[in-house]
């Protein structure tokens, strides 16, 4: 075994001395650049490791971490989510892609962990952990809801009555008699109450939207759109990214989406 001694250093020094000044400068720059890249990669890996090991709902309070994650999350969002939710995250009602900037959440409560679950496993995506507890039945079809065959179709008049009832719920002008009939359908044979609740305020645990506000996932909230939704049903999807993006990338997207509806707001910290 031969060690590296003073003579070897002297030889190395002599070899360097034989190089031209330009070559020495170029060599120093290459070494310096390599060192910078290496240090950058190490720091980046450390930050990513810290990002994924943090409790997701507490991450928004970590200013440094948010500064690290948001620009990356924005890039990932543009590449993977913007085609449906739009570049600014305002959604596309034509395909039922929700607005991500209004802090109205169809699934979960809008915490980072809720968003992360959707990004990871999707909505009605083809995996066992996806959010797929219920669909909107198509009441103008012979079998409105194949997952619950006891649910019967509605007549056109029934659908009109339910729309009138929903108009009452969101304080719009409506025919009171029709709305009364609609309420009976909503709370009984239509089975609407099962997901949307008897008060129509929805259930974020299963992705049933609130029907009493002015936010509509599909269409413009007109009676015609609502009737069409009741007649033909809905089952929007969101892809799962757990097998395409790294945990750090998923966290970065989730934090970015969270920031879209919490800009300039002091986030809620969940640590007691």
């Amino acid at each position, binding site marked *: *075994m*031969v*060690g*590296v*001694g*003073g*003579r070897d250093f002297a030889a190395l020094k002599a070899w360097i001395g034989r190089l031209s000044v330009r070559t020495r400068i170029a060599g120093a720059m290459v070494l310096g650049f390599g060192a910078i890249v290496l240090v950058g990669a190490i720091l980046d890996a450390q930050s*990513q*490791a*810290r990002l*994924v*090991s943090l*409790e*997701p*709902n*507490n991450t928004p309070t970590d200013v440094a971490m948010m500064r690290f994650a948001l620009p990356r999350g924005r890039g990932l969002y543009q590449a993977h989510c913007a*085609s*449906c939710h739009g570049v600014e995250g305002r959604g596309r009602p*034509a*395909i*039922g892609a929700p607005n991500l900037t209004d802090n109205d959440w169809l699934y979960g409560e809008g*915490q980072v*962990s809720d968003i*992360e*679950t959707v990004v*990871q496993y*999707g909505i009605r*995506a*083809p*995996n*066992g*952990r996806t959010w797929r507890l219920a669909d909107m039945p198509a009441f*103008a*079809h*012979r079998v409105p809801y194949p997952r619950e065959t006891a649910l019967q*179709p509605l*007549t*056109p*008049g029934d659908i009109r009555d339910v729309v009138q009832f929903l108009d009452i719920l969101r304080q719009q002008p409506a025919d009171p008699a029709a709305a009364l009939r609609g309420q009976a359908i909503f709370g009984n044979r239509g089975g609407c109450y099962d997901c949307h609740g008897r008060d129509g305020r929805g259930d974020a645990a299963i992705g049933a939207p609130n029907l009493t506000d002015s936010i509509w996932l*599909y269409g413009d909230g007109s009676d015609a759109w609502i009737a*069409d939704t009741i*007649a*033909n049903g*809905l*089952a*929007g*999807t969101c*892809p*799962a*990214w757990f*097998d*395409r993006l*790294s*945990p*750090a990338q*998923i966290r970065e997207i989730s934090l970015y989406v969270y920031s879209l509806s919490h800009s300039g707001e002091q986030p809620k910290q*969940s*640590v*007691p």
Partner: protein
Amino acid sequence: MTVAKDIHSAPPQPGWRDMTHVSFARSIWLFAIGAAIGLILAGFALFTAKGTSTLVVPPEDVALVNQQPIARSDFYLQLKTLYDTDYAHATIEQRRTVLDQMIREELFVQRGKELDEASVDPDVRNAMVAAVEQSIAADVLASQPSDATLLDYYNRHKDVYSSEGTLVVRDLVFPSANAPAAEQALKAHQNVDAVVSQFGGKDSGRVKGEEFYFASRIHLGDLMFNAVRGLAAGQATAPIQAPDGVHILYMVNNRPPVAESFDQARARVLSDYQKDAIARVQAADERFLRKRANVLIAGDMRQ
């Protein structure tokens, strides 16, 4: 004497710490230490089935079970599912319980693979088939088709995208002898109730009020529905013989299906496009699997 001894004695040997000289003793020791470390690592791997395992749990995981990670995000999700709490608010006991359950599940899954449960258990087989089908479908759902692609799909399947027609029809039953006269009276736009009363007819009661086309088809049967669906309001069918008498169907109101525009149908177009794409990709995957597989079929099955 002293001087002579100094002249004939060997030059002083360099110590093993002197890295500028080769040291036989140092080489032997380093070789022995390296061999010992190698043997220890090999023995540890052999007797603990750790293979080339790492001893560090990656930051995105909460545990490694035989090198199989348990993701931190899954742990949080499980915590939320079981105790409706997040990590920060969970007690140590809750965290431990969830982690123990997840480790147990992973161990049993791994054991299931070792035992090749899929070869005997139909539930496991079905789950595996479904999982593979789902993983194929995931590729399709992860890529959003352009509007131009969807529009093209819509144009090729335009007939599918229409509203369900609605109608209000009266199904009237007359005695055989009176049916032709009743038909003439209805076609002459006489009052329907008066015609029913005059010719001894009655309403069958099979259809009530406004119905979707599909519901009327169920209530009337294909023969009568097909006879009535093309009529305009105020028109009546010819008498139709049925076991319970002669039926004449009178159309009160008919709103045939209306084609939906691309914008109206976009959500359904997207859904149908994705379903078709998934079916295509799954079929292609199956073809590939069959192509690369070595499938031997018994002689009597080759017909």
